[in-house]
Structure formats: structure tokens, C-alpha cells
């Protein structure tokens, strides 16, 4: 494999509020995020060579070929514009695709925008989620999206002997972190007891284990090295990208470990020259649509050994000591999907924005205390199948 010749930086980021319902159309939300990212980068759309769109199932917004629908709101009118898509992994994958647009040498400045408007699917987006299943051998069983995560969570707990009390601490941490995020939909000060006493959805998944459906958009601006250095004193370099897709047949895989996340992470770490992830990474935003997923993904990212993310975590104090903003390794300082909300593709992009702001020391009240130099954002999706990973550095 040849070496990467062109360095690429993120030079601006933008985000909307995340809410259960927003009045703006998806095109309008995209415009807000894109415009903010451009302003933060100190450029206008005239300076943008190409646009990459990220948005998850068309069945949420309720528009076929949703990328084309969103194009002008993302700044894609009469420009090179393309939509990339890997289900829930899309949010981190979108800037990865923007990265190869720049790294290839074709473009100097590329805008990456992610949007989701799940409120269009009425009364509840869960109905749209049922269309992600195979129509012949899964949908007729009356499958619900939460089913498959419950099966995965059960398997994870069973294989490693992890307890629900431990997993619940993740929800406590992230919802509390989100109190400091101005866009957050579900920030809250809750306890492990609250999680364990919340309504059972699909055992072992309870109400407070899950992130909400949301509307929202987020965007980042990528630039080639020579442009980035002209435009900003604080470029955040994209040093590693990775993604990986496992087999469709998820009932034929052991769900206890996300091997595809590990493979994606290995690809990104190799590119970034990272050999010892927990030592070399200062802040991480693994994908947390469910609380157990943070543990699952942190293990896939090799930030902890298999089954050991929650090893010494017995209560809330333990999780903040290990993974809080002033803990050993800050994880999801943004508040994650559990706290900030989960407009699918925009939620993954939010994680990239968060690492960008953390590394630039612009995260305000959310700023982690360990003077971070290297951060990783990760998303996940499809039928528990895809991992997308981006390593950033200052």
C-alpha cells in the first residue's frame, strides 16, 4: 500500500440544537450547520470545492434519494456533491469520505455535512427502523430495532459477566456530561437506580439505557495542509481513518465483541502510527446509542481489553474517576448520544466536532483536563456490523 501524501485538517465545525422535533426542514437544518462550520473556518461557500453529505436511512426524513434533496442546504448546488452512507456509522464516515476528497489531491477545501430529521416519521421513527431488517427472514417476525441490541447486550453481559448496574453508570456519566452541552436534548442528573428502575423496553434494555430519536445537523470543513495553515493557527489534523463492514448474517456471528470496530480502529491507528491506544489517546468519543455500546466500542477501539471496560466500575464515582472529564481517560465528554441526542448521522458528526473542539481547547465547560493532543471519534451501525473511526491530532 502506498503512503498517504497529503495531510488534511479540520478547520471549522458547526452544529444545530438536537431536539425530538425541530420545525426547520432537513434542508434548513443542514444550512444552519454548514453555514456555522464555514463561519468558524473563516471562509464562505465560494471557497468550497466540493461537498460530502452524510445522512442515514431515507425512511427517517421520508424522502427517497435524500442526499439529492438535501444538496442545496448543504452547499452542494452546482458543486461536486456526493452522499455516503453506512447506516449509523455515517456520521464519522462522512468526514472520512471528505478526507479522501482532499487527500486525493482533487480538492483543497471540502465541506462535510450530516443531517437527520427523524421526527418526520410519525408517530414514531421506530416504524422506519423496522425497514432495516431483511424483509423475508426477519421482518415477518415483527422485529423491532431494540431487539437486536438487547440480544447483543445480553451476549456481552453473559460472556464477560458484566452487570447491568455497571452498564448503567455509562448512562449516568453521559447524561450528566450533557448538562454542559448547549445543544443537548436529554441532559440530566440521574442515578444508577433511576436507570435500573426505568421502564423495561426489551430486556435487558431499559428506557434510560437508550438514546432518543432526534432532529439535528452538524458539519465540518476540511482543508489541505497548505490551505489550512493559511486559514488557521489551530488546525486539527486527521491522522487516521478506518472503516470496516462485517457480514449481513448477524445471527451467524458472536455478538459479544465488535470485531469490525477493532478492524476499523487498527486501520486508523496504523495510519496514525498509534501502537498503544490507551496510552496514546487522550480523549475518545465512542458511539453510545445505548449505554452498553460505549463499553463494547471502547473495547473494539482497544482502549480497554475485551470485557474489561467496566472492570473496576462498581458505581457512579468509579466511572467518573476512570472516564470522566478529569478521569484517567475521558470518554464521551460531549455527553454522547445518550445525553446530547441521536439524530443518527448528525450524532456521529457531533462526535467529530467534539474531538475537534476538545483538541483546540475550545470545549468550554466540557473541556477535558488532560491537555489532549490525540483524540478518536467512532461510530457504528447497520445490523451491528459497521465501525467507522477517525483519529485526530494537534
Amino acid at each position: 500500500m502506498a503512503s498517504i501524501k497529503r495531510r488534511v485538517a479540520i478547520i471549522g465545525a458547526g452544529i444545530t440544537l438536537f431536539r425530538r422535533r425541530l420545525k426547520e426542514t432537513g434542508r434548513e437544518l443542514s444550512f444552519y450547520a454548514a453555514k456555522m462550520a464555514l463561519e468558524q473556518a473563516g471562509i464562505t461557500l465560494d471557497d468550497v470545492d466540493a461537498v460530502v453529505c452524510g445522512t442515514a436511512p431515507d425512511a427517517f426524513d421520508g424522502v427517497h434519494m435524500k442526499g439529492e434533496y438535501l444538496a442545496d442546504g448543504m452547499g452542494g448546488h452546482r458543486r461536486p456533491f456526493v452522499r455516503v452512507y453506512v447506516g449509523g456509522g455515517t456520521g464519522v464516515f462522512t468526514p472520512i469520505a471528505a478526507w479522501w476528497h482532499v487527500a486525493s489531491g482533487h480538492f483543497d477545501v471540502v465541506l462535510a455535512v450530516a443531517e437527520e430529521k427523524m421526527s418526520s416519521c410519525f408517530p414514531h421513527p421506530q416504524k422506519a427502523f423496522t425497514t432495516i431488517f431483511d424483509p423475508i427472514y426477519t421482518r415477518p417476525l415483527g422485529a423491532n430495532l431494540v431487539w437486536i441490541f438487547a440480544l447483543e447486550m445480553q451476549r456481552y453481559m453473559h460472556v464477560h459477566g458484566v452487570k447491568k448496574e455497571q452498564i448503567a453508570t455509562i448512562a449516568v456519566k453521559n447524561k450528566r456530561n450533557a448538562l454542559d452541552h448547549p445543544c443537548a436534548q436529554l441532559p440530566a442528573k440521574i442515578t444508577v437506580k433511576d436507570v435500573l428502575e426505568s421502564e423495561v423496553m426489551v430486556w435487558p434494555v431499559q428506557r434510560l439505557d437508550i438514546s432518543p430519536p432526534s432532529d439535528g445537523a452538524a458539519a465540518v470543513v476540511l482543508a489541505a495542509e497548505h490551505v489550512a495553515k493559511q486559514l488557521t493557527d489551530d488546525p486539527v489534523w486527521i491522522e487516521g481513518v478506518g472503516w470496516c463492514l462485517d457480514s449481513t448474517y448477524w445471527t451467524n456471528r458472536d455478538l459479544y465483541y465488535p470485531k469490525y470496530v477493532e478492524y476499523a480502529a487498527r486501520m486508523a491507528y496504523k495510519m496514525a502510527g498509534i501502537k498503544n491506544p490507551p496510552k496514546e489517546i487522550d480523549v475518545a468519543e465512542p458511539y453510545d446509542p445505548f449505554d452498553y455500546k460505549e463499553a463494547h466500542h471502547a473495547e473494539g477501539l482497544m482502549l480497554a481489553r475485551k470485557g474489561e471496560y467496566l472492570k473496576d466500575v462498581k458505581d457512579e464515582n468509579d466511572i467518573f474517576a476512570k472516564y470522566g472529564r478529569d478521569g484517567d481517560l475521558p470518554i464521551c465528554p460531549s455527553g454522547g448520544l445518550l445525553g446530547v441526542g441521536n439524530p443518527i448521522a448528525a450524532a456521529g458528526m457531533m462526535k467529530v466536532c467534539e474531538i475537534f473542539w476538545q483538541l483546540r481547547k475550545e470545549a468550554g465547560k466540557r473541556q477535558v483536563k488532560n491537555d489532549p493532543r490525540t483524540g478518536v471519534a467512532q461510530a457504528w451501525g447497520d445490523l451491528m456490523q459497521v465501525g467507522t473511526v477517525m483519529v485526530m491530532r494537534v
Partner: protein
Amino acid sequence: MSVERSRLPEEIKHWYGDMICDYTYTLGLAGEKFFLGLKEGKILGTRCPRCGAVWVPPSLYCPDCFEELTDWVEVSDEGTVFTFTVAHLGPDGRPLEEPEIYAFILLDGADGGILHKLGEVRPEEVYIGMRVKAVWAPEAERKGAITDIRYFKPVE
């Protein structure tokens, strides 16, 4: 290379299903103003401060300049047939009993216009460049939808 083909006639060849959900699309910030305008018998557009274009239907942003558009202007309900088609099929692809005339009407004062039907005119009389005017539904019947304009008709 070919996949082994089935030769059993009794096999189940197709599986039927759908991707149907109910959707509720908020009209958005620009759309809501536009449709409320229709209810009042007005066609509204947004003006770009940079390029000066008046976009109808209105957009919250200029697709060319990416400026946020906050300058709302009322445009005329009269305009010119920019292009038209004589429709012989309904939305489901079945033949229409009577052909309809669909047009894009470039409205006076706008850099855009409205897609709508033409009425009070026969297909063979319509031409590109023809002057037309909106025929509004009675005020009491308007509900903030495109059908608040019944159709456009030729002006003398």
C-alpha cells in the same frame, strides 16, 4: 460463473412487502411563511442581499450565495408561462379522462416561480411566453396549501 439455478416450478419466487410509514413534514421556516402568505392571497419570496435574486418558492438560504435570507418580498400573482406540458397521465400512471395543462410560471418580480395548473384555456392555445394570472380560492376556503391557488389563467 453462474449461480446454480432452481428448476423447481413450485418454489416460492417472490416475497411481497412494503416500506410504508406515515410522514408529517413540517413546512420549515421559509415554507410556513410562504403557505401562510397563500392563505392571505399573497405570493412571498425571499431576496438575497448578495446577488439580489428573489427566490420563489422562498428559501431560507440562497442556493447560489449561501446567504441567509431574511428579506421577505411579495411578488406579483401574474407572470409568464416559462414552460408547459399537456398531461395525459395521472399521478398513478393511469390515463386522465381530460388532459390537464401543467406549467412553470415565472412570476413578475421573482427569479423563480410556481409549478401549477393552467385553467380557462385549451391546450392548443397555450404557448411559452403567455401571460397568466393566479385564480385564487375564495378566502374562506384557503388553508395554507398550494391549492389556495386553483390554477393560473390567461390574462387579456
